[in-house]
């Protein structure tokens, strides 16, 4: 039993003796040529495009919010100014002081 086990292990360890080299497929060279010599076109992956679109959308939303807040604030300031103007007594406009 022990000897059979040892013989099996030795056979496994020596099983690469007399081994031949495996040949790659004929297409391998064609694939390498295609990868090495083909014109390089820079491709943007879809995931990157999605990221760019999301970033642009966030920027747009932030701009809209900022613009909305700015317009609201401007309107409030002008509203206060107009109210203050209404409280100022009307100026004498005909200049006939000694009638």
């Amino acid at each position, binding site marked *: 039993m022990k000897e059979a*086990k040892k013989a*099996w*292990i030795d*056979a*496994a*360890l*020596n*099983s*690469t*003796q*007399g*081994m*031949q*080299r*495996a*040949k*790659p*497929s004929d297409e*391998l*060279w064609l*694939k*390498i040529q295609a*990868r*090495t*010599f083909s014109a390089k076109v820079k491709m943007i992956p879809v995931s990157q495009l999605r990221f760019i679109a999301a970033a642009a959308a966030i920027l747009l939303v932030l701009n809209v919010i900022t613009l909305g807040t700015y317009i609201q604030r401007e309107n409030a300031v002008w509203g206060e100014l107009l109210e203050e103007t209404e409280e100022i007594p009307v100026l004498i406009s005909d200049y006939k002081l000694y009638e």
Partner: protein
Amino acid sequence: MSDPTQLIRAIADGDRNAFQELYTLFSEKVYNTALSYTQNEQDAEEVAQDVFTSIFKNAKHFKENATVSTWVYRITVNTSLNLLKKRKRRFAFISFGDSVKEKPDFVHPGILMEHQESAKALFKVIDGLALQQKTAFILSFIEDLPRQEVADIMGLSLKAVESLLQRSKRNLREKLEKLYPDRRKKK
């Protein structure tokens, strides 16, 4: 022109014929080394593609203090190890959710018919070796390279390679011992 160093110089100048000549010289060595690591013919071809693309790109950086063979083997070993790491990460990710399928037994196409059953067990246990031991074993006993070239490829001393080989053989023996009853049950 068939001197590999001259071929590399010509490739650095963009010579496609020299590249094809180098491919003819080294394609089987690259493919077989990759096959021993990946134990899968498709993955080995993927590694070979990466290796030759890398050779074409980096020919101008080749330092002539090393032989072309050493340089090509080094690129092949590194590319194969990178693929194994990538595959391990992918496998860990998949196995997190799904049930794990057992890897099918690998039969190297170059193994003699009468050794194929024993070789299946050998490749199974090689797959479980630590990376440096695996590299030393594959280059020395499967690629049949001289120990000094193995040392040059791995960037180690001859003594360190000898020590790695001793440890790899001891570990392979232990792993094969554990596999032995399994084989008997299957019979």
